């Protein structure tokens, strides 16, 4: 079992005919993901190595039975692509695109509140359920099937920490890259809720960073609703206030959003917080039930 994506996922890729889009679509298919369609306006009827291209997401849902969309559309068209997919009724949208104006994302998030569609991203590496399906750009080779759920704001820290776990023989149920933008879809709270409910997940790793209050809200949620062990990591202790560290959302504003405050909030509710990616894997090994 896994969360969000799995063996039953039927994927449509918006922007599949672009360079990045086709490269990662084929990698996802090679991993075992069932990729049923691509969407590029004006290119209906074409195909990418046998994957049919449709002009709209609605067509991909109707004719190919797509239930999950991955968005690889350039930033200025990406918000519209998400809205189109939600309107076509897919249950999950994974948006990889980086650089979407935050006003557009605020509107998208407001619209999604009234639908049954979930969003992961934007500016994220995607979601992988090892051995079942890979939707995004997380390198499947570093993962292994297992019983640890992982959710992270940073993409490369997913790779780094998963690699450390896999090297120790610890596999993963699902790894979720929630993305580094200030306004995003599924966050720590939603991911923790999914993993808590998932019978095949024994422990959750959450990887945070400076900026915003996602980690603090996760701590409050853990206290009230999570009974499984949680191991945490926070990046950015050395980040100075007011400087954006790469990710649009990674910025300490005044005294708010510091790594120290986040680590403290998590430790206060019993989360074991590692000092570096290696010690996170060690803490996971200690905390995993036999």
């Amino acid at each position, binding site marked *: 079992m896994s969360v969000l994506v799995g063996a039953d996922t039927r994927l449509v890729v918006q922007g599949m005919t672009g360079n990045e889009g086709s490269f990662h679509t084929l990698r996802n298919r090679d991993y075992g993901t069932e990729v049923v369609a691509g969407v590029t306006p004006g290119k209906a009827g074409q195909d990418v190595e046998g994957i049919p291209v449709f002009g709209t997401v609605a067509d991909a849902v109707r004719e190919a039975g797509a239930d999950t969309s991955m968005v690889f559309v350039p930033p200025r068209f990406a918000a519209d692509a998400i809205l189109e997919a939600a309107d076509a009724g897919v249950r999950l949208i994974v948006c990889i695109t980086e650089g979407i104006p935050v006003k557009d994302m605020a*509107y998208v998030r407001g619209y999604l509140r009234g639908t049954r569609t979930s969003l992961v991203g934007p500016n994220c590496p995607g979601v992988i359920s090892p051995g079942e399906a890979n939707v995004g750009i997380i390198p499947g080779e570093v993962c292994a099937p297992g019983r640890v759920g992982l959710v992270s704001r940073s993409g490369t820290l997913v790779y780094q920490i998963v*690699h450390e776990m896999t090297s120790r023989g610890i596999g993963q149920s699902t790894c979720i890259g929630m993305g580094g933008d200030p306004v995003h879809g599924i966050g720590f709270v939603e991911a923790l809720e999914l993993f808590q409910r998932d019978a095949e997940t024994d422990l959750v790793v959450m990887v945070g960073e400076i900026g*915003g209050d996602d980690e603090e809200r996760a701590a409050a949620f853990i206290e009230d609703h999570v009974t499984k062990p949680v191991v945490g990591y926070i990046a950015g202790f050395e980040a100075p206030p007011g400087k954006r560290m790469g990710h649009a959302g990674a910025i300490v504003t005044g005294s708010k959003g510091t790594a120290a405050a986040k680590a403290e909030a998590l430790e206060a509710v019993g989360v074991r917080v590692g000092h570096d990616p290696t010690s996170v894997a060690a803490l996971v090994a200690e905390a995993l039930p036999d």
Partner: protein
Amino acid sequence: MDLYEHMGKDLFRAHGIDVPRGIVAETPDAAAKATIALGGRSVVKIQVQVGGRGKGGGVALCATPQDAAAAAERMLGSDFKGHHVSRVLVEEQLPIAQEFYTSFVLDRSTGEYLALMTAEGGIDIESLAAERPDAIRRVHVDPVLGLRAWHVRELVGTLPLEAREGAGEILRRLWDLLQDGDATLVEVNPLVLLEDGRVVALDAKVTIDDNALYRQAHVADLMDQFPIDPVEKRAKDAGLQYVKLDGHVGIIGNGAGLVMSTLDVVARAGAQAANFLDVGGGASADTMATSLEVILSDPAVDAVLINIFGGITRCDLVATGILEALDRVDATVPIVVRLDGTNAEEGRQILADAAHPRIVPAATMLDAAEQVAALVTGAAA
């Protein structure tokens, strides 16, 4: 991107929001002339991308042009909270009856806009929120609905009757600016009621979303006016995510999270990073070479740490890029390299075969941090 006050006020004016008449000055003489043009008295305010100017001596009430020149003389070229002052805004003095505060900010935890209004002006909004939260009216605005009449009535309801209409009009126009201008913050502190009944924005703090600059061309053009570190400029021109820091270890990594984590691990090993540099996903040999050139051009750098976890990025290309860079620039400092992930074996082999005297291979991220820390602490001794 945080705008200078005078730039924010230009945007306010363009949206029909009443602001004091003002002139930007870059010399004491220009400040005196501006004061004459404004009727002989003025307010002189430093222009920096940081708040707290009122309490920090960054605002002067000037009764004569000579006063204004003296104030400008004191301010120009000075350093305010680490920001260099290169210009002042000279404004007319207005007869103020009462001061208030208002702002709109994008609330990242909900994805909605949060509007604030309080009848207490010239205050630090964060202390007021902590001490007397009831003094502040708060309204969440769903971006799909937009700002509605009831939002405005709720907000201005905390103001004296005679200010409500004017303040309501300003709220509607600030909302337009927020939406048309891709602002993530607009703050007016203070918003004032004048003795003649007009409501005027006495200050303007505006932050524009960097991701939206492609459709805010007139704002993007303003970026050249902000001071920028030369190394930072070079990195930006090359399309790299770079932030200058205070230490001596140059850092290159792929992915914002991994680079932040690298800074932390280096600090725990006892050294300080000279920078944050993210080469991004799928870094090519050329990107690697440019990054290394940028880092090595910073005189503060005593050693470099390259920390790459290959996902989409291939470590063999990274290794080739490092060697190319070392052909192009003359490295005088040691470069610790840690490669892991996609094609890491090939990458390590390429570096081993080259046997470059400056390159120090490291097996893990922690090992790399410890080696580089030992190198810089040795260099300082």
